[in-house]
């Protein structure tokens, strides 16, 4: 795709202010606005294991602690471990049988194909079944921490009850966040009293930790023993397993592989989904994908004459209509109001706002408005781009015919539309057209940044057919939408004339 080469040359301004290439933006058909990854609400749609592609339902995923039960990561290099099988001879233990024949038994162990780590080297016993029997190390602190959690939960519920009974003045608050410190007099009063925790004591209180004077001393052989660095874990290896953080390589234990998520994306203003992936982990398709390049005309830079300060250069732009409907394109200046407009039957132009857009509220993934939450508004992003050249806007508009997939294959000669302004439209074929514009870099010293690429900005108005039928509006609504575009044209040419 050409986007790979022109990735940031043509950027569309999203409704939130982000500037992105057309490949990275969505077009919400319901509120007729451009949306992007920054201003949509991301949601976890489904989980899967990147190794075995298991995709359990979300409820099960939590029980599995968000990790695959079959696959493990190498504790050494973090690649996926493979399960190897082998055979061992086992002597039958039945003494009743006189001649106990050795029986072969299939066994399994884990091994890393990349760094050669193996569960055998680490001293983990082989398993007789391939999956399901590999046990993760149980934390030695689980019992203690569970007791602490339960204790604080009880304290929490006591505090909650007291607050509900409005006995807020009670001193039985176990963590006084509201108080900004203790004074000497308070402390003196406190000393005579029973400690707060103890007075709250119920049989549920776990034994408080005992402090000790004994401390692990630095082992004396550290001053004499030489170190083999290859046997000592790196920081990354330690942090991979926070609970253990072992020091020696042979103490590393494999960790179950974490599930990966597929995300769906929802427009934050109308709560319609703009992107929803296929549930199947192997599929790269989408159930819903309101990508902008299906709805908004695409613009590419064909050529630009070398740019000189104060001189005009020719700029060729290619427009492409991706929709099934003919569209009229008008290029406008950046300060044009961006509100969508429509032309009524009487030929009067009127602005469209949320009330008279055909929203189509019967969409299955849309919550009834009573349940819907208020929209959380995020501030727009600042556009950190300096426009340092003027583009001479054409006085006439031009038409892009609808996309015709069949026409792609036959090769009609370049067709010139008789209505085209020949000065503007230099080439056209099917749903595409190339137009010519003039660009003049600003001479203004304040606006000139040294060796910054030349950027021009313009607004594109395009015709859009809203095909979402609602009860009141059965016929498609014809609208004029606008989007701001930023074109990066390359650096100035500094040649001596």
């Amino acid at each position, binding site marked *: 795709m050409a986007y790979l080469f022109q990735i940031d040359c043509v950027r569309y301004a999203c409704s939130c202010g982000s500037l992105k290439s057309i490949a990275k933006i969505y077009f919400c058909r319901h509120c007729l606005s451009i949306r992007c990854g920054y201003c949509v609400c991301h949601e976890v749609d489904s989980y899967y294991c990147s190794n075995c592609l298991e995709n359990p339902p979300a409820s099960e995923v*939590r029980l599995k602690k968000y990790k695959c039960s079959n696959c493990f990561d190498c504790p050494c290099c973090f690649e996926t471990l493979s399960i190897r099988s082998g055979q061992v001879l086992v002597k039958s233990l039945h003494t009743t049988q006189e001649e106990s024949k050795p029986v072969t038994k299939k066994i399994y162990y884990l091994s890393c194909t990349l760094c050669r780590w193996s569960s055998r080297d680490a001293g983990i016993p082989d398993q007789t079944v391939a999956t399901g029997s590999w046990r993760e190390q149980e934390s030695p602190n689980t019992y203690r*921490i569970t007791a602490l959690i339960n204790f604080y939960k009880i304290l929490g519920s006591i505090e909650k009850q007291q607050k509900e009974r409005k006995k807020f003045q009670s001193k039985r608050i176990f963590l006084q966040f509201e108080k*900004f*410190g203790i004074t000497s007099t308070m*402390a003196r009063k406190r000393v005579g009293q029973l400690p*707060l*925790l103890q007075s709250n004591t119920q049989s549920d209180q776990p034994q408080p930790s005992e402090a000790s004077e004994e401390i692990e001393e*630095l082992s004396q052989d550290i001053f004499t*023993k030489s170190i083999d660095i290859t046997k000592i874990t790196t920081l990354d290896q330690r942090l991979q397993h*926070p609970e253990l953080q072992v020091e020696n390589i042979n103490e590393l234990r494999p960790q179950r592989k974490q599930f990966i998520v597929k995300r769906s994306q929802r427009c934050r203003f109308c709560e319609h989904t703009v992107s929803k992936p296929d549930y199947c982990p192997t599929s790269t398709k989408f159930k819903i994908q309101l990508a902008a390049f299906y709805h908004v005309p695409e613009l590419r830079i064909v050529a630009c004459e070398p740019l000189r300060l104060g001189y005009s250069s020719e700029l060729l732009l290619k427009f492409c209509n991706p929709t099934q409907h003919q569209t009229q394109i008008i290029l406008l200046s950046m300060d044009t109001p961006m509100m969508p407009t429509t032309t009524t039957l009487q030929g009067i132009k009127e602005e469209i706002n949320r009330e008279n857009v055909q929203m189509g509220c019967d969409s299955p993934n849309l919550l009834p408005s009573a349940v819907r939450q208020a929209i959380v508004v995020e501030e727009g992003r600042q556009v950190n781009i300096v426009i340092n050249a003027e583009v001479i806007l054409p006085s006439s508009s031009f038409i892009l015919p609808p996309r015709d997939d069949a026409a792609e294959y036959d090769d009609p000669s370049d067709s010139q539309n008789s209505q085209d302004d020949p000065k503007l439209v230099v080439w056209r074929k099917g749903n595409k057209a190339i137009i010519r514009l003039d660009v003049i870099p600003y001479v203004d010293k304040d606006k000139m940044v040294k060796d910054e690429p030349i950027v021009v900005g313009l607004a594109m108005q395009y015709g859009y057919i809203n095909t979402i039928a609602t009860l009141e509006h059965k016929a498609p609504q014809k609208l004029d939408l606008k989007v701001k575009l930023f074109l990066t044209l390359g650096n100035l040419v500094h040649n001596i004339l």
Partner: protein
Amino acid sequence: MLRSYEGTRYISDKQVIVLDIGSAYTKYGYAGETAPRGIINTEIKCPESRELRKIYSYKDEDDLYQLLVEFLHMIFFKCVVISPKDIKIVILESPLIPSKFRNTLAKVLFRHFEVGSLMVLPIHLVTISTLGVDTLLVLDVGYQEATLIPVFEGVPILKAWQALPLASKAVHESITREMKTILSETESTEKLIENIKVRTCFVTTMERSLKLETDNPFKPPPDVKYYTTRTFEIPGSVREKAFEVLWQRDNDNLSVPTMILDSIIKCPVDTRTQLAENILLIGGTVMAKGFASRLKTELLYLLNSELYKEKLKIKTFKFHTAPSKPNYTAWLGGAIFGSVDLPSRCITKENYLELNRVPDWVNLIDNRKDEASNTI
């Protein structure tokens, strides 16, 4: 079956995410669990410029906002794999975090990710829950600085707080300096220096330390052969000296042990013995071999020095051991607290959107700073 019943009840309530966004490492995981799911660098690849940026290297609030959006997006969808919308988040907060940071973080969580509620917990205070005690002197030696706040009967003694830039960063700088002749400037990345520190260096004894700079020091520990793209040797003296910066008695007499003593002096007399006998060390730096034993020796030595002999009548120091590794003890405190249903301690989305800021009662820190400046 009671067990499975409990299991389903647990499943039905929403998962709570606990985040401790430290200046070097971020600890993330779920409330109610015994350890964080991961410990990662607090940095993110900027999507536009593709450079790796530390979150705390932000230029201004706008910059921080964008960095946090990218960083938290990664945490939610790649690390804890949960939709952030309408969930409860627990944030651990260091006392030195500027209110600008806290406010921007809350704004990102509520306005961008639309989280349901937020609980901001001060690191030192919340740590007591990992021990089941209510009197504790918590010393946190992290990356940027060492901070200390004593907690007495569940209440932080804020006027006795201490903070010094004696932590990981200072240790890294000292190793980098010592390795100058061996590693070129481009070679000595913080990642390599940190690995050298963690894998080979240790905190030496006070006895040996006193002789380090004299004419007849002890025989240094063996050199260590280290392999990166090339092989080089780490001199034994570098291994032994790495952490000395934390104990040096400079002109101001400020070191990690003096923080503890100075703090205890600022506490009411009746609380001092109890605090000295309830010390907990947290933060990644205290995990260095020999740290705790050196700290104890230094404390006992200083206690008998001219500086503290008259002022402090303490005999012993006692240390707690939390059911965790010190670099995530604060996170564990958050994970214990986060599993308790305390709506009065949470800022809800509705609340935030109405006030458009974090309510005052969370601004413990600002209050403390005023108080601290009064006492100086």
